[in-house]
């Protein structure tokens, strides 16, 4: 129990303390101590698998428990989370060495990590919600970290609001399930009758779509690049984006089976659509962002065939290579001295062998080349879909194959554009600061060794299928071939390396600008939201200020005063008027009295 509490409590406490005491030395100490302790506790949890519940809030008929249940798979995800956080923190120390707001940054990263660990280990949906939304708030703070970057506040607010929009549904779904089951404990939800379960799970799915940036709520993720690069690594690799998929895997037993097709469709659309966007994207971090969306689609695909462990296996594998890719991207951009646009960012492999190899390994793993982690995890997901033999399985299987082709294509394109366009010679070899280098090395080793987890890990995975493996490899090679073909054609024609025509994304033809802009979804959604908000707000203000306040409330006051004036005026006449009035009054009273007496 103590282990479980410390796992969340220590990073959370250091995070809060770091926000209160903004001292640089202390912050650096906390920054490393929190994930180290978290990592240790997660490892302990993997051995002890703690399970306990304390009452957090008793609302009478229903209770919220501080309930943790750390199964083997949850511990694996927790370890991945703490590990990535540790590397991100180690990387940030040199990366943000000149940043005056570093203490707040480090504290927020710790809080972020604590929130994710809470989501991973919680066994009570409302308790889980705490981590779920604190994560959203931390992402807001971290994305808005660069105070002087004009687009940062907007991107941060968008990230928070879009996920919060999903959370409207998520909260409703949780409450429906809780009301139906009489408990929020995940273990007790399986008995929920089909009707509430369907409604609740669809709503929760929408919340997870928001958090995981799946179609149609993918719009917040690409702009979120405005945050510092380590934050992107954190959000994309092991926290936030993965949380949606993770929660869905926890709730697989609750799903009515026939509704999984909806998850499959969401996953299929996202995998392919985001793959196309990644292929067309115009800057380094944009490619990685869209690739995250696409890869999380794979996790959703595994959920759609009720293969929770395959999803988590891909989650952990993705955490490794995506963290590596983002952290390396930060190094590459720093060495190239650009803003990350693919038009200008280029290096020679020799400029920084570490960056070159880190990028290469990360991309190869993402594309699914054996024997790297990505190969095993993708094979596991597709294998599960292959074995499922449900409509959902068919949909995600073929979508997964197409997405694999696209993955290989955009990985190859990125690699070619970054390293093989030649670059102006640099006088000296770029030095990667030791904190950053440490993180890259650690992640490379993990990815190389990741395959072992397939054979020895806590995950229940489908067997390796030989036919599937070859199909997957063929798909990957197909993706490479398309890009290589486009590249060499340009080369043969003698198009200079810096020319836009050389970009293999040209194979997309006229659709490319639309894809590079994410099918304009972000712009449309932004415009639509603003228009709706403006109209609705205007209408509400008219209703509230004009109708209720001015007309009803102040109007009644005015009417009262006017009546008072009139009455007062009536009493200001001369003697004649008084006489007339009293005569009329007497008559009226008499008439009424007679009428009443006659009537009764």
């Amino acid at each position, binding site marked *: 129990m103590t282990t479980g509490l410390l796992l969340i409590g220590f990073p959370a406490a250091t995070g809060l303390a770091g926000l209160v005491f903004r001292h640089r030395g202390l912050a650096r100490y906390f920054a490393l101590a929190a994930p180290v302790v978290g990592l240790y506790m997660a490892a302990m949890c993997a051995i002890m698998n703690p399970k306990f519940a304390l009452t957090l809030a008793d609302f009478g008929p229903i209770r919220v428990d501080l309930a943790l249940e750390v199964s083997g798979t949850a511990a694996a995800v927790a370890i991945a989370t703490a590990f990535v956080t540790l590397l991100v923190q180690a990387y940030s120390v040199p990366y943000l060495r000149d940043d005056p707001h570093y203490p707040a940054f480090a504290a927020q990263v710790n809080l972020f990590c604590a929130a994710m660990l809470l989501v991973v280990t919680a066994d009570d949906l409302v308790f889980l919600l705490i981590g779920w939304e604190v994560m959203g708030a931390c992402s807001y703070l971290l994305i808005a970290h660069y105070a002087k970057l004009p687009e940062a506040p907007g991107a941060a607010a968008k990230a928070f609001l879009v996920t919060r929009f999903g959370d409207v549904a998520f909260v409703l779904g949780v409450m429906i399930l*809780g009301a139906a089951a009489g408990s929020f404990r995940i273990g007790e939800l399986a008995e929920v009758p089909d009707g509430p379960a369907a409604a609740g799970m669809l709503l929760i799915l929408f919340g997870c779509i928001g958090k995981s940036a799946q179609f149609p709520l993918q719009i917040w993720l690409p702009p979120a690049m405005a945050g510092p690069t380590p934050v992107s690594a954190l959000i994309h690799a092991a926290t936030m984006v993965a949380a949606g998929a993770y929660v869905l895997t926890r709730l697989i037993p609750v799903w009515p089976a026939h509704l999984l097709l909806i998850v499959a469709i969401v996953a299929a659309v996202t995998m392919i659509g985001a793959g196309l966007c990644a292929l067309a994207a115009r800057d380094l971090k944009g490619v990685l962002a869209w690739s995250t969306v696409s890869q999380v689609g794979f996790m959703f695909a595994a959920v759609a065939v009720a293969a929770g462990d395959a999803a988590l296996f891909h989650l952990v594998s993705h955490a490794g290579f995506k963290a590596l890719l983002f952290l390396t991207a930060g190094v590459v951009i720093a060495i190239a001295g650009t803003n990350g646009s693919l038009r200008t960012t280029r290096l020679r492999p020799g400029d920084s062998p570490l960056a070159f190899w880190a990028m290469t390994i990360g991309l190869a793993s993402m594309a699914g080349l054996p024997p790297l982690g990505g190969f095993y995890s993708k094979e596991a997901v597709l294998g599960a879909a292959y074995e499922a033999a449900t409509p959902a399985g068919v949909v995600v299987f073929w979508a997964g194959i197409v997405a694999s082709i696209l993955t290989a294509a955009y990985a190859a394109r990125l690699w070619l554009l970054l390293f093989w366009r030649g670059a102006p010679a640099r006088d000296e070899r770029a030095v990667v600061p030791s904190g950053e280098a440490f993180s890259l090395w650690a992640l490379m080793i993990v990815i190389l060794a990741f395959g072992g987890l397939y054979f020895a890990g806590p995950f229940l995975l489908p067997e390796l299928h030989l036919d599937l493996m070859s199909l997957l490899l063929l798909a990957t090679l197909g993706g490479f071939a398309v890009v290589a073909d486009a590249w060499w054609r340009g080369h043969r024609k003698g198009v200079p390396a810096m020319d836009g025509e050389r970009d293999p994304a040209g194979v997309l033809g006229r659709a490319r600008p639309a894809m590079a802009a994410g099918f304009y979804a972000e712009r449309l959604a932004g415009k639509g939201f603003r228009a709706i908000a403006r109209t609705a707000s205007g209408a509400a203000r008219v209703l509230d200020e004009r109708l209720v306040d001015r007309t009803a409330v102040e109007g009644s006051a005015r009417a009262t005063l006017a009546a008072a004036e009139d009455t007062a005026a009536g009493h200001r006449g001369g003697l004649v008027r008084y006489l007339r009035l009293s005569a009329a009054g007497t008559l009226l009273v008499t008439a009424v009295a007679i009428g009443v007496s006659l009537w009764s």
Partner: protein
Amino acid sequence: MLVPAVAVPFFGAVLVWAWRDRAFAHWIGVAAAALGLVVVALLPLGRGDGNWSTMGGSMTGGWWHEVEFAWAPSIYLDFSLAVDGISWPLATLTALLGLLCCLHNALGAERHTSAALQVPLATVATGGPSRDAGGVTGVPGESGLGEPGEPALGEDGGAIGAGAEGRSSAALQVPLATVATGGQTRRSLRAVNVQSPAAGGVTGVPGEPASGVSGGAPLSGTAEAALGESGGATGTADAAAGPSATLTALLLAVQFASTLVFFADNLVLFFIAFESVLLPMWAIIHRYGDPAARRHAAAKFALFTVAGSLLMATGLFVAIADTGTADLGALIVLGGVSPEISLLVFALLAIGFAVKAPLWPLHSWLPDAHTAAPTVGSVLLAGVLLKLGTYGLIRIAGGIAPQGAADAAPVLAVLAAIGIIVAGLVCLSLPELKRLIAYSSVGHMGFVVLAFATGTEAGVNAALFGNLAHGLITPLLFFLAGALKARTHTGLLGSLGGLRLAAPTLAGLLCFAAFASLGLPGLAGFWGEAFTVYAATERGGAWLALAAAAAFGAFLAAAYLLRMLRRVSHGPVAPAVAGVGDVTAAELIVWSPLVAGTLLLGLIPGPLLDLFGEGLL
């Protein structure tokens, strides 16, 4: 213990007022408020077990403590106080906020604001009616303030005065008969401010009867008389030099009356206490508020609330006539009034409380009052006065007319849901910081009323919790907004920006308060709102739509609060924000209990919910 809990703030108020000229008056106020907090905090000691039993023909034992003195039995009025797990947290909150407000005054946390706001009023010299300066005149404003900047400030004053005229419909204005009776001690001789928005500038010279004012309204007259004060004189003059001790006395008076409301175990006493909160609050807004809008706002606030309370009084007397007792505890335990008139009683009471709560569409006094009130006024309004409404609704209206409450629940719930959505939408485009926070209160109170309307146990618990959480969070927001306005002299979102670069700690606290207000889990605001959604979901059927509306309201809250943060904290540093000081130690002292409370209630909601479970409903 109950009697001291009520008496300490009362005598504190009297003492502070009596010694308001002394330098230590503020500290007497602080001491009284602190003592009050200690006494209230000690109340759970030796409490009863919450079980009612019949002893000697009357019900007893359900309260933690109770005291009873006969006062005027013929009109069912007893001075009987009682406390339980529902009223105690609210009383503690009241005492805490009272203490913080007194501290705020005593530490002069806002000294330079008040000066900035008031200087325009106190500058224009020379007595006698003068109509040139746009309705603002001061008599011998030689208080040494801002002689150099006088012309500019004078123009400012003009602008403010003009604003007042433009905004206020003459009809609603309570014409001011601020008769400055001469011979008052100290500064009142120096600067008298009489502002009659409808009629341009009118000045009362000390010692003269009010000149040229078109007749004092009864309300104004009584209030002035009740306060036994010398009109607006001391207030403005004092504010120019620092927070007034009279303000502290008024704060304590509010604290006293509110505590009495929460502890009243007799319906007539409850009504008297409920009404007497109004007077000091009216005076606070009326005399210490934003000069441009305070008269209008104060009048609207007072008239509106009085109208509601009269209906409430009718309801109370119907209930007393029906049951023959005014003993609240007995009424609740016995199941309230007879079923035939239950709906009538509930409707009458609910309208009264709904005005105070406020429930849409009876809320429109609130934004004006909050916007115009001084910081401490807004804090007490949000933290205490709104709670009176919801407390009354849950405890009194729901307690003595439970059938009526069940019958009227759909209406209440729909209005509450509309309130949540409308307030959220309105907030999306409001241009002014304090007004935005005020409107957000309407939304939050909508959650409370909706949760209560569901009538389930979870719902009532959520309502009580949300009520208390709002009492911590919104005052914090108002303190922060007050500090911001004090520094920048503007509350317009359009002219703010870049606060996190200029004053990082203040921006961080604002961010914290905004997160708490949008119901971030782990902070106090979450539990009430999430379980409002739960309670509505639990009812099923059409209530699901209300649950969805409430959940969507929480999204709107996020939208408008992030918009607020973006305008205030982010972006390039606006000219108004440039060079503002960061949070001072005094401010931190005042705010930190609220921050800590928000965090604590958010992380450990259990004990408070257990208290509610012991309470009598």
